[in-house]
């Protein structure tokens, strides 16, 4: 076999079962996800049936305990699955990452009863989750959120509007952060709200620059009643729960970004080996060869960084700073690599007939979601130099 040109990513995987899992993922990605991606993204079509398919295959609960129907996989493995999915279609990779994020609160902070009741459904592959933190007036400053949760007997009533919610209107359950107490981070609690709860409604999806197949919508809570048994963790613990989930979620975004970047490199590589100018393949020109070398090196460095963070997490060590670095580096890399990929294809790269302009539009959103890259730098800097304004 030819040893240059686009190749499957060589991966170090800890177990034989992980190798089998990646093989299954590649099979699904190549045969079921990638073929329709370009047309469906252009049409803005959400592939709900793809989530059913990969749910049946067991990919919607990978990093959670088998006891509750999860796959019992370490992050080191789960993230590489995400990377392959995102390379085939970001709407699917990011969707799995957000779903996994939405399961995090119940899995890590839910009572034994809550886990037993909800997790099998959430992880089993038939349900899809959404994660509701951002609001129209609170994005980076998430602790300023205003959606209210008021105690009413054995229930809570939730009122307010969440913004930018991935799977908004399409999800079967929503993990919602709402203000149950006073101002600031300590006044926030977490709730698990069923998708069909009366009073919950979604606005029409945002008209986005990319990632058009993934619905992103405002979600309105108009007197939505949830029993106290659906409150996750202690009252006031919600923001800590949200941040805990985000540390892991950022690793998911880093993996997705690496997948998109890899897909862009592969597409560009395939092209420059074929395209001829000045009587030779343009891949002959050293200016382009060095671009390819830099692209591949950055992708590999990003992959190594997110995997290093994942292994810290898997071994039970603090990984928050490393996760922020990985999210920052991998998404900036994806932006740069996808932009270069468009350049490598010349005018063709700028058309929708080739996938690289889509990758470029997709990479952009990854620098914004789950904490903008400015916020990631802030997180990393706080680990280095402590909190700002110490006087």
């Amino acid at each position, binding site marked *: 076999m030819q040893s240059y040109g686009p190749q499957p990513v060589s991966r170090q995987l800890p177990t034989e079962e992980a190798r089998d899992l990646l093989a299954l993922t590649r099979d699904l990605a190549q045969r079921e996800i990638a073929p329709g991606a370009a047309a469906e993204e252009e049409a803005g079509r959400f592939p709900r049936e793809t989530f059913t398919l990969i749910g*049946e*295959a067991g990919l919607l609960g990978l990093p959670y305990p088998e006891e509750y129907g999860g796959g019992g996989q370490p992050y080191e493995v789960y993230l590489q699955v995400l990377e392959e999915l995102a390379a085939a279609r970001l709407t699917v990779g990011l969707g799995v990452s957000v779903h996994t994020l939405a399961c995090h609160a119940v899995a890590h902070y839910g009572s034994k009863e809550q886990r037993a009741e909800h997790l099998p459904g959430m992880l089993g592959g038939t349900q899809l989750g959404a994660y509701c933190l951002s609001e129209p007036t609170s994005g980076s400053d998430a602790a300023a959120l205003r959606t209210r949760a008021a105690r009413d007997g054995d229930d809570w009533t939730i009122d307010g509007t969440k913004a930018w919610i991935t799977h908004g209107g399409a999800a079967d359950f929503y993990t919602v952060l709402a203000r149950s107490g006073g101002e600031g981070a300590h006044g926030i609690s977490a709730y698990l709200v069923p998708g069909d709860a009366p009073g919950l409604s979604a606005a029409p999806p945002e008209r986005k620059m990319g990632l058009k197949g993934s619905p992103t919508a405002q979600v309105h809570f108009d007197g939505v009643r949830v029993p106290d048994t659906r409150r996750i963790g202690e009252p006031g613990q919600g923001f800590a729960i949200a941040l805990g989930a985000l540390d892991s979620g950022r690793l998911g975004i880093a993996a997705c970004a690496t997948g998109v970047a890899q897909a862009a490199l592969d597409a560009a590589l395939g092209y420059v080996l074929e395209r001829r100018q000045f009587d030779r393949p343009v891949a002959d020109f050293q200016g382009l060869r060095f671009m390819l070398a830099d692209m591949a090196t950055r992708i590999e460095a990003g992959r190594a960084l997110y995997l290093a963070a994942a292994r810290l997490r898997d071994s039970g060590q603090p990984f928050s700073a490393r996760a922020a670095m990985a999210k920052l580096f991998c998404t900036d890399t994806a932006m740069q690599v996808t932009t270069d990929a468009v350049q490598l294809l010349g005018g063709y790269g700028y058309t929708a007939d080739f996938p690289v302009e889509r990758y470029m539009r997709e990479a952009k959103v990854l620098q914004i979601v789950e904490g903008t890259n400015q916020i990631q730098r802030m997180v990393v800097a706080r680990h280095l130099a402590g909190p700002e304004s110490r006087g």
Partner: protein
Amino acid sequence: MSLRIVVAVKYVPDATGDRHFADDLTTDRDAVDGLLSELDEYAVEQALQIAEAADDAEITVLTVGPADAKDALRKALSMGADKAVHVEDDALHGTDVMGTSLVLAKAIEHAGFDLVVTGMASTDGTAGVVPALLAERLGIPQVTLLSEVAVSGGKVTGRRDGDAASEQVEASLPALVSVTDQSGEARYPSFKGIMAAKKKPVEALDLSDLGIDAADVGLAGAWTAVQEAAARPARSAGTIVKDEGEGGKQLAAFLAEHKFI
């Protein structure tokens, strides 16, 4: 009583790989990855559906092939089959359809069966005769090339779609059926299925276990022999018609010239 289904599955060279013949004109299995024949995935799928519809059923998947052929069995087990039989013997190298069907028949008898399910043809040899030979050797009725199949009341029924007619056929058990690529997409294994498959039993047998004389199989025992094999010539480059107003006419002329219209 439990319905015993045996599915014959073949391990074949990946058709997307660069396939070659070895010096003795047998398939060069070292040079290219192998996998469960895609056409046999349909057989596994139909067996699973029959088993799911039955109160109690057990599916055995069977392959005759080299050590790596275990991969095909694992795939079928991860899709949901219950156990596997692998017949492997160095003396099998170069076996033709007669020998293959002999070994399969002995192994199926060894496993015990009410229903044998096969694919319509392998994706490498594509003889398509193994199912018929098998039924003959086992002395059971065969209903082949089914695009729909079901079992009830001690009978297997199915639909065979031909050019002129669509036939509804049936046979009493024990029987053999072969299914086509129109019988319904094969499922993907699930991750849990893959993990469960590692714990399912795979029985390894050789020719002596089945009481088969090595002289009846292999290159020497084959009734047919490949005399010569040459790579197909590469397709020649097509004709490019440049449309300068007359493109349509030129295309029509080309098609007429080659008697397409």
